[in-house]
């Protein structure tokens, strides 16, 4: 199991290099490799995005990310899995997150890859602030909370 050797989940302040991450997963019994890449989109819910910031709570993010990878290795018939999430300032088209999974058979790689990205988005303490072309900016997932007092009821984060 390749990913045991190093950390299988990382936050990176530098651009993510997919071929380099893929090399960590190469081994001769792997027949199916599935990867997911999340790219920064030029718009979000109708607002034109110019750039964004990802911020992470590194200590807990890498711990929780590692737990997710371990769960994937336990719950799916896969050989290896790696995930790197970018932090810092990103522009449209930049790679925000990369997940790669190898397995003997492709169904397992698809299922595990989807599990990992779903769980990472749900559980890993990483935050995104979008800067819009109109000059506004906002943290994603917290609704319009900056206008409401803490005592009011608000919809939960997604």
């Amino acid at each position, binding site marked *: 199991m390749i990913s045991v050797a190093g950390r299988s989940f990382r936050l990176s302040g530098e651009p993510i290099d997919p071929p380099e991450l893929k090399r960590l997963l190469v081994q001769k019994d792997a027949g199916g490799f599935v990867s997911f890449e999340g790219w920064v989109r030029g718009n979000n819910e109708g607002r034109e995005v110019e750039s964004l910031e990802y911020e992470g709570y590194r200590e807990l993010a890498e711990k929780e990310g590692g737990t997710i990878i371990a769960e994937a290795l336990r719950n799916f018939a896969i050989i290896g899995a790696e995930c790197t999430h970018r932090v810092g300032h990103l522009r449209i088209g930049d790679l925000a997150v990369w997940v790669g999974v190898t397995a003997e058979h492709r169904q397992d790689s698809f299922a595990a890859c989807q599990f990992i990205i779903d769980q990472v988005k749900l559980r890993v303490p990483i935050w995104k602030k979008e800067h819009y072309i109109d000059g506004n900016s906002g943290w994603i997932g*917290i609704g319009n909370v900056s*206008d409401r007092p803490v005592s009011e009821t608000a919809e939960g984060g997604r």
Partner: protein
Amino acid sequence: MSSEISVKVEYFAVLREQRGLSSETRLTGCENPRDLYHELAREHGFRLPLRDLKVAVNGEFGQFSQTLSDGDTVVFIPPVAGG
């Protein structure tokens, strides 16, 4: 005030911006993260409701009701948005 403890609070994302600090160490009479958040929210005008937050104590996810000890590091975690 003999029951006061010293805790380190780290701030991220919207809370870091609203607090204007990445971290601070403070003396508090609060016994658990719930009370501590309400204390900080009153002081700094945080508007995120507690139910939208998670809490980490000493680098692990924790409970809002757990008893804090002197020297603990507490992080309030706004809704995450990775990916």
